[in-house]
């Protein structure tokens, strides 16, 4: 496989995952803003911060008017983190690597771009937002479904999985960190009752409210949530789950190509770090520090993969 193709696959799925995550965040924001006790500005500020878009938003707007925030996240044209430009970037990468994708995967990706491009051409009205979010979810599910149903489980597939998993792990870490660091900067009281609004944003933004409640019988504790999102290997957006997937994809490449690369040392270190930690250790030694360490190692891993597999000249 061409190095460029591996890069295109990797980034196609990173961008797709990113767009999916922004959609999820908007959905979480809308849900929570509807609860009577919620302070709307608080909710939207936290959504923007989690999406990494708060600064850009403040440069351009003075109020946190919901429709404005949502439209900013969905379709702000010269904002590279809006859903539309992320989908566009995913699709551009897909176009570049079309020869490595089955027709089903390519068509699902292209269809997403066409349909979202149509709905996001004009500002989305409040009553249509749910429809648009539904579309984002459905289109992304279609791409992943086609990928799983039709692609060979070879190096092509490994690079798509690396893109998705690295992006997802980074996103989950950011969601946790933003909540902890920005919203609860003071002491962390283990076992104290939670500000429901904030923690519900977390669970909803990783589509895990339901599964958390199944597992913990409705007991919402910060330590429970941290454990769930970092260490629970049953949870498909937890850091440990994503790291496992990165590890197995890199393991596949080492076997297939008959060669270990520097990125394999990095993933071994990441795995060891997570195995050595536990929810108690993380809380006692600082959640923020743990997440910072993870994030920088995770992005270093991404860069190393790009180098090891010759994505660029």
């Amino acid at each position, binding site marked *: 496989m*061409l190095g460029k193709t591996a890069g295109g696959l990797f980034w196609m799925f990173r961008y797709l995952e990113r767009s999916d995550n922004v959609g999820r965040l908007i959905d979480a924001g809308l849900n929570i803003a509807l609860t009577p006790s919620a302070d709307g500005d608080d909710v939207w500020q936290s959504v923007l911060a989690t999406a990494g878009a708060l600064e850009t938003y403040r440069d351009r707007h003075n109020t946190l008017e919901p429709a404005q925030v949502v439209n900013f996240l969905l379709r702000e044209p010269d904002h590279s983190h809006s859903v539309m430009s992320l989908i566009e970037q995913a699709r551009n990468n897909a176009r570049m690597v079309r020869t490595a994708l089955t027709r089903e995967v390519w068509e699902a990706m292209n269809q997403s771009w066409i349909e979202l491009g149509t709905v996001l051409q004009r500002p989305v009205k409040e009553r249509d937002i749910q429809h648009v979010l539904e579309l984002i979810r459905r289109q992304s599910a279609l791409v992943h479904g086609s990928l799983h149903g039709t692609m060979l489980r070879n190096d092509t597939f490994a690079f798509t999985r690396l893109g998705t998993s690295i992006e997802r792990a980074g996103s989950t870490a950011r969601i946790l960190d933003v909540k902890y660091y920005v919203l609860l900067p003071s002491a962390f009281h283990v076992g104290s009752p939670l500000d429901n609004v904030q923690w519900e944003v977390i669970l909803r933004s990783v589509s895990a409210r339901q599964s958390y409640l199944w597992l913990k019988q409705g007991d919402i504790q910060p330590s429970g949530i941290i454990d769930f999102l970092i260490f629970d290997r049953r949870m498909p957006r937890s850091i440990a789950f994503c790291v496992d997937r990165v590890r197995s994809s890199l393991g596949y490449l080492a076997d297939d190509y008959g060669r270990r690369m520097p990125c394999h040392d990095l993933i071994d270190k990441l795995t060891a770090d997570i195995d050595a930690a536990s929810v108690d250790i993380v809380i006692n030694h600082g959640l923020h520090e743990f997440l910072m360490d993870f994030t920088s190692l995770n992005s270093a891993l991404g860069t190393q993969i790009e180098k090891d597999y010759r994505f660029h000249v």
Partner: protein
Amino acid sequence: MSEPGDNIYDAEAGGHADSKGTFDEMFGRGASVRSCYDSYFQWFDGEDPKRLRTKAAEAEATFRTTGITFNVYGDPDASERLIPFDIVPRIISAREWTRLVKGIEQRVLAINAFLNDIYNRGEILRAGRVPVSVIARNSAYLPQMAGFTPPGGIYTHIVGVDIVRTGPDQFHVLEDNARTPSGVSYMLENRETMQKMFPELFSRIQIEPVRNYPRRLRHSLQASAPDGCEGHPTVAVLTPGLHNSAYFEHSFLADQMGAELVEGDDLRIVDGRLAMRTTQGYKPIDVLYRRVDDDFLDPLSFRPDSMLGVPGIFDVYRAGRLTLANAPGTGIADDKAVYSYMPEIIEFYSGEKAILDNVPTWRCSEPDALGYVLDHLHELVVKEVHGSGGYGMLVGPTSSKRELERFARKLKTNPENYIAQPTLALSTVPIFTRRGLTPRHVDLRPFVLMSPGHVNVTPGGLTRVALKKGSLVVNSSQGGGTKDTWVLADV
């Protein structure tokens, strides 16, 4: 519910020959249906126009989802456009096709022999059948190719021959595309779309398949690999990149052949061979199907500012360690000045008269011809010698007085830059519109593959159709559309 005969046939527009004697391929005199369209028309006449309109809209949606688009330079709003597709097929009988194939094979063999000759011994020039000046002063002649014979002696691995029809048995070659002909992806996708929309037609009518083209292309390219190539030769497709107008086709063909789609920055010369950067290091390439023009192939040998090619690739080529398809320098064979000598060229190499006619051509470089062209500008088509894509040409009969005058001035300043041809009464095939069937002018580009000892013409090709009433310009960049092209099986 089908409503037989209901407003399907646009009588007013006249499906049959009009006053100027235009030949319609579907309808003969008095709206009688020509025999090769019999079964199709029977089906069509029984269809509900509403259902057909829905199908036509579905076809467009399919093309969009598949991403069968072409890019338009300098138009950011419509950077990816669809070529309009018409649901009425263009049908060619087995007898007509057999004759076309003979003529096409004869022609491409002559073109290949001509290239070999002018880049080596130059016999046709010494025999005085083609003037030396036509070659020597021609910018399409590539001196770097002189004295070198490509692997297997093949220059034109892929040719698209543009053919127009003016009557039942009158076929003329309008142009030979011997550089990097495009459009084959439309031939394949048009057929796939038709089969998806109207499967019943394909069980009712025996149509020659086109789907083998990518496999044949791959075999043909592999068979043209350099000597000493071990195992299965590695084929790659070279594209200028995402923004090229034919990018879809490049990726489509690479995909269908199971070859890598590469750009200049994926390639490098390693140990005297062309190699591509893979996830496991550089891997050699034996055959490069390049969709990049000669000028841009190698900044060391051609345009020094080219970012699209590979420095040093031409040296590897001349060392016989790589096949380029098509060979550099083939442009001299589809040059319009050389075109006018094609009957002589065919006769010189095959010893036979050309089976397919040329269109009569005046070379404006000759003073007598220029005089005639200037006097008859209003009835002629004038083309640039090196032009393509329908740009920079004049269609006399549909041009205003001012346009004619402006063009006359250009002709006088730079006569050797132009050739002129009579305005041909191109045949028509009906297209499907809201008002029913209505005739539009068409041309045909069959695709030819060549490898040592083999010539293969895919039964069918790309039919381009001028969608504007009365228009003769079929180029997609000028508002043309396409049709599926059926060659009936000989039963």
